[in-house]
């Protein structure tokens, strides 16, 4: 293992901001959810790299928790998308603005 931990952290930061860009720019809720998955995975990569650097598996447990949260978030988010599509016949987040005050 010759790769320094800062390389992994830099990679994780780049991947996180690709995810942020996806959420901010795209208007398709499916792709926005995928961008959120990208951000969660970037956080996971940072956790695993730090865990390896300090030889402490608390980070692994945290990644396990994050994976669970990601699964729950994807399931609920996609459920909301399906439910919105049923009523609005559209999945563009700018068109579905019924809750706007």
């Amino acid at each position, binding site marked *: 293992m010759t790769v320094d*931990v800062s390389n992994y952290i830099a990679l994780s930061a780049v991947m996180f901001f*690709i995810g942020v860009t996806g959420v901010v720019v795209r208007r398709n809720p499916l*792709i926005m959810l995928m961008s959120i998955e990208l951000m969660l995975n970037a956080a996971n990569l940072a956790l*695993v790299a730090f865990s390896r650097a300090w*030889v402490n598996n608390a980070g692994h447990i945290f*990644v396990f*928790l994050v994976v669970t949260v990601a699964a729950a978030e994807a399931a609920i988010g996609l459920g909301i998308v399906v439910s919105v599509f049923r009523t609005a016949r559209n999945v563009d987040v700018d068109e579905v603005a019924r809750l706007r005050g």
Partner: protein
Amino acid sequence: MIGFYVLAIVLIASAIFTIMQRSPVYSVIGLLVNFIVLAVFYFTLNAEFLGVIQLVVYSGAILMLFVFVIALLSSGIGPLPEGPNRLPHVLGPAIASVLVCFGFVAYGVLHAPMAAPMVAGSAKQLGLVGSANVFGSVGDFGVALFTTQLLPFEITAFILMVAVVGVVTIASDASPQPTRGQHERRKRAKEREPIVKAGR
């Protein structure tokens, strides 16, 4: 080291591919490549159990969920309507917010005390990936999960329970089922049909 850079380039390229695609199906393909490369990173970081979890849960379950929802939403109506291109409107605020966030994280990364190299580790604690009873092996992870980290494990179960109940509540047909005649029920079924079949 060469392998790290090759994998890093593939990781970033697949992430960019994911958010650039017009059709969500191509995005799913990009995300699949991204998750597989990430699993390889986990294996090289002595986290073999998490690598397997990454492949099974993310590439197996979550991406299948995405594919099924895409198939459900676009069956029978062809590709979803595109709408006007809003990129010129959102480009300025988007770039500003992303750069501000990136500044915060860059500050954190550059100022964090991470100069310490990877701990070399004794042969007992940090062994070859795949061997038993070393750091990150399934036994190591399992012992930690069921003894010192039991509370996060139970919270995991609670989160999944809440998610299942929430999804059933949100996505099921929420209209009450009164004891009316056959005619009424058939009418409701006819209203429901276009979800799967016809477009506007």
